[in-house]
């Protein structure tokens, strides 16, 4: 991807000597879209974190005189909904919820998936085999089917929705970690660690796991994107975050019935989801190349 335009890489490479970029960072900066993705995500996170304090309307504040106001046509910058609530304030507040759920679900599923993958990979044999068959079996259920069944069985709130999204996402991490650990445990440094009298726990989490950080980081990024998407699906279908708490998904739940009269209510939350998820996916793509030393030779 070498164009004539000046890339972030060109500017950074002119930095004084002695402050050379690490090869990983250099490979990441080569991905212009990944860098753009980072900027978009940072901007969105800051906006969602600070925005609700700066907005001129609260996200639950009703304004009956300005119901269904189109964007840029009145006091509400991005328009208002059927109760006159400010769309911008709601989008930012919903962003907090959606981003938090995506991140929290990622942390939980990465933790669970890594532990399961490392233990199954290290023990191997029958135990590892059984655990990984279970992982395969859970992966046979389409994620949305599983998610909706669980969401209907529990009382939905931010914590439980996060938990069930994590519950449908940890298997892929487990699979990746398992595969890598199986290959790694045959290597000499593991034998050396055993000879030195390290406990299995130490070998698993101090010797083996750090070697899999790269693939885990990439998978983690993609899980954040998927978590935000899944949250929007369940909330749109009415089993996720419950109003009046806004999330990008449940803002779209009512939008379908106002599609003819107030299309902006349907467009904007979807744009936010797509923008966020696409940015995270581009970053994940960039990280995949950056963390893989072989990508330099290509």
């Amino acid at each position, binding site marked *: *991807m070498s164009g004539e335009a000046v890339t972030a890489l060109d500017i950074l490479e002119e930095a004084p000597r002695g402050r050379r970029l690490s090869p990983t960072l250099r490979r990441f900066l080569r991905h212009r*879209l990944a860098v753009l993705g980072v900027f978009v995500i940072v901007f969105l996170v800051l906006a969602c974190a600070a925005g609700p304090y700066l907005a001129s309307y609260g996200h639950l504040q009703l304004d009956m005189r300005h119901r269904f106001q189109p964007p840029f046509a009145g006091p509400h910058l991005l328009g208002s909904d059927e109760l006159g609530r400010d769309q911008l304030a709601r989008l930012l507040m919903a962003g907090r919820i959606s981003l938090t759920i995506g991140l929290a679900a990622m942390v939980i599923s990465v933790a669970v998936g890594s532990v399961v993958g490392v233990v199954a990979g290290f023990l191997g044999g029958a135990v590892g085999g059984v655990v990984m*068959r*279970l992982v*395969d*079996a*859970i*992966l*046979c*259920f*389409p*994620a*949305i*089917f*599983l998610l*909706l*069944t*669980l969401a*209907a*069985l*529990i009382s939905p709130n931010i914590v439980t929705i996060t938990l069930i999204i994590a519950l449908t996402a940890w298997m892929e991490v487990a699979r990746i970690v398992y595969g890598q650990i199986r290959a790694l445990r045959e290597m000499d440094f593991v034998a050396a660690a055993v000879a030195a009298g390290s406990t299995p726990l130490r070998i698993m989490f101090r010797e083996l796991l750090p070697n899999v950080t790269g693939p885990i980081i990439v998978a983690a990024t993609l899980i954040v*994107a998927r978590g935000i*998407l899944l949250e*929007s*699906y369940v909330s*749109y*279908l009415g*089993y996720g975050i419950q109003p009046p708490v806004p999330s990008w*998904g449940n803002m*779209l739940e009512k*939008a*379908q019935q106002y*599609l*003819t009269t107030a*299309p902006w209510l*349907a*467009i904007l*939350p*979807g744009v936010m*989801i*797509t923008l966020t*998820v*696409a940015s995270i*996916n*581009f970053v994940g*793509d960039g990280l995949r190349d950056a963390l893989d030393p072989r990508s330099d030779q290509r």
Partner: protein
Amino acid sequence: MARYILQRLGQSLILLWLVTLIGFLLLHLTPGGPLSQFANTPGMSDEDLRRLAAQLGLDRPLPVQYLDWIGGLLSGDWGRSYRDNAPVLAVIGSRIGATFQLMGTATLIAVLVGGTAGIIGAVRRYSLFDQMVTIGTMIALSIPTFWFGLVVIYLFSVELGWLPPGNIGPVGNASLLVFLHHLIGPSMVLGLVTTALWSRFMRSSMLDALSQDYVRTARAKGLPERMVIGTHVLRNALLPMITIAGLELPTLLGGALVTETVFTWPGMGRLFLDSIEYRDYPVVMGMLIFAAVLVILGSLIADVLHTVADPRVRLR
């Protein structure tokens, strides 16, 4: 090869058994269990609940219930719907056609559009077209399916008036043309993600085939590039796509669920959501198992076909 197929069959059976176990535990170990919808009904005493549980056999030990249920699964008795007392298998069967029509059309779009884009992208690697397709693929995978459905309805039904906003057609009007007209919107929406996936996998499969030695040989002996790509590369690149088609089944099924909801398409996805709303657990359970069985079958068939079509796989 027979040995490989038998082995693969054995794996699938184990997987099937695990799937039933997980599904069963999922429903029975969650707080409330299958009777949770009655617990909050006014006028329902604990005594009534107990009687109902006994009537449905829910008071027996879990292993007994599981064996009873799995025996039913095997003999084709998947239980009866709480809603209208119809056999679960018949309820699912009545909806499966609409879903398959949708999934089939979406896959056709994906193979034609996505496949072609992937092939051109790989042949002209790093060209403007290739970069655009790669970026477009990534964005397509980031769009929530239901929202894309809303956008399609807004653009083509509300604004332009070209497409019906949903459903399979007016009651009583079963003409093929009307049906196809209603099929365009939802299959476009369901096809978006599958097209993106197909173009991505097709591209990498083509690149894989392009780097093989026989391609260099074919070029060295002076074959025109058209023949090299058309006969040597393409045919070999298409083989792994059989497996991809099997692997994409869960995504396709999940996407169908959402698409059917937006377009009120009377398929399995719609049925699943309705059953969840009515807390119709026998149907929910049946659909979960049914979806998983489809996925397992899909990947089994894909693997076997791949083995039959590609002699190199058999040697591994």
